[in-house]
């Protein structure tokens, strides 16, 4: 991130008095412009960080965060040795890793295919259509999935069977990933499409004149043009594998498919907010976000290496 870059030397040389003078002269910038956002950040982002202490204590509402008895690493010991926790961790990882592997190439292929369509009118219409599912809410998407896959739904009647897909743990991941591709692949292709349209037309002309066929044009002209974006997108998404969202997994859960569909965030919700086990669930959440931070720092480091010293 920009914040971690070295300050420019000209600014670092300002004396404290000059700085104070600047602040006094430009007080509006601090009070009117910055303060609202800063206050919201301090209250709602830094406020909860103090609550992380709950992960190390036997929290009760009356004693509060500071007064509750200390239990140390008890919760961490408990969940790290629990087979349930391990299977939920694996569910989380499998869902996002397989989701990444299946979902990542499709927008690129879509963009390359769209790029072959020279008639802008048709291309624009197709784009408008395949972007649309991105704007459907998680609830509506999951509602559609449930209706289409219900024992009396259209997919079963098409196949002439009456399987209850939503109750099968082995079907959950496929349902989750396929519906994710259906919803977001079109929209994710936008970035590659934009990069392709900025790619050098001269180079493409030259390749055509040299007799390159379409596959060769893609390989030598178009793919190199979007290579950087592909690499950065992949690394970014890989950095997010532990922060897979709560909303969709929860909306696709049924009592029967829990062995595959319970992921860490839904587990934290169930334990903490539904069962009231605050300490234990905070510990699980903390574990999740610490792994996430480590992943992101690593990813930022890799991007910096590949991107000439510029991080995210």
């Amino acid at each position, binding site marked *: *991130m*920009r*914040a971690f870059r070295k*300050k420019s030397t000209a*600014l670092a040389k300002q004396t404290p008095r000059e700085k104070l003078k600047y*602040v006094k002269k430009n007080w*509006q*910038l*601090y009070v*009117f*412009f*910055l303060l609202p*956002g*800063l206050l*919201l*950040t301090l209250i*709602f982002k830094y406020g909860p960080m*103090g*609550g992380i202490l*709950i992960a190390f204590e036997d929290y009760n509402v009356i004693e509060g965060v500071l007064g509750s008895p200390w239990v140390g690493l008890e919760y961490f010991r408990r969940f790290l040795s629990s087979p349930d926790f391990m299977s939920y961790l694996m569910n989380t990882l499998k869902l996002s890793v397989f989701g990444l592997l299946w979902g990542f190439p499709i927008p690129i*292929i879509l963009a*390359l295919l769209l790029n*072959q369509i*020279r008639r802008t009118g048709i291309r624009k219409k*197709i784009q408008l259509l*395949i972007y*649309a599912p991105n*704007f*459907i*809410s*998680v*609830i*509506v998407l*999951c*509602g*559609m999935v*449930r*209706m289409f896959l*219900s024992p*009396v739904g259209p997919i079963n009647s098409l196949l002439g069977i009456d399987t209850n897909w939503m109750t099968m743990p082995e079907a959950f991941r496929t349902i989750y990933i396929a519906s994710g591709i*259906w919803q977001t692949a*079109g929209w994710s292709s*936008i*970035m590659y499409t*934009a990069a392709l349209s900025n790619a050098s037309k001269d180079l493409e002309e030259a390749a055509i004149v040299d007799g390159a066929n*379409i*596959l060769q044009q893609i390989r030598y002209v178009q793919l190199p043009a979007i290579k950087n974006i592909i690499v950065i997108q992949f690394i970014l998404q890989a950095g997010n594998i532990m922060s897979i969202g709560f*909303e969709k997994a*929860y*909306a696709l859960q049924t009592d029967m498919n829990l062995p595959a569909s319970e992921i860490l965030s839904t587990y*934290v*919700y169930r334990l*903490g*907010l539904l069962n009231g086990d*605050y300490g234990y669930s*905070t510990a699980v959440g903390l574990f999740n976000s610490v792994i*996430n*931070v480590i992943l*992101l720092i690593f990813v930022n480091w890799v991007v910096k290496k590949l991107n000439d010293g510029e991080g*995210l």
Partner: protein
Amino acid sequence: METRRKMKLGTSDKVILGVGYTLLGLFVLAVFVPLVYVVLASFMDPNVLNNQGISFNFKDWTLDAYRRVLENDMIWRGFANSLFYSAAFTVISVFVTLLAAYPMSKKEFVGRNFFNVIFVITMFFGGGMIPTFILINNLHMVNTIWAILLPGAFNVWNMILARTYFQSIPGELREASALDGANEIQHFFKIMMPVCKPIIAVLALWSFVGMWNSYFDAMIYLNDANLQPLQLVLRSILVQNTPQPGMIADIQSTAEMAKVAELLKYATIVVSSIPLLIMYPFFQKYFDKGIMVGSVKG
């Protein structure tokens, strides 16, 4: 270009293009068919839908499902709540985000790096679900609209996008307005806002759509049925499979009820998607711009 390409197409190119277009066509169909199915199914007679699926015989069509959905108070209330939450959230969020982005875009802003670190840390790390819930609870914000409007209002990522956009605007503008005696606040509203319409539109679109489509915050913070947004009403109908009371109260047999309940889901989906459908063409010209803005590094 067009003609030249056509002349150059060899056999292998034709095969490749054929396969490629077929794949693209299949994907487009895969996106299109479910959407159309939902719309068509919402007009079907429940018995026809249950027995044979979609029928193109007009005597099998009915607006019964829409009547039941639109006569339901909870749908309307959810609609009104969602519209209000999304509009209010968009205004608050875009305003606070742009305000903070403005000083952060100034190279000479004293404390810029310090504040930047404070903001950026929250993109990587947070307290998590339970501590956040306890905090909101302690602030007595549970069951108030503030619980869903305020915590997410300041979005660091959006702030970075806006900041990058502000930086692309020549600094001479500020020098000129300073000569005319305008202070920063006047400059921001009179000069910057009109110049920055594209980024405002993009941020507003994302804030609105994000709030309209989310359900998690409302699910944990709003227990009062009168405050619930549309997505929670939809959740009980679509996911939890419990139609709103009153929607099917007049039907006698349980089997009939189940069929109508299934039909109602389709109509509910169509009704709930109308606002985004209206916004969609209006905002599509900003799609590409939004991506351009997003791809500029912060």
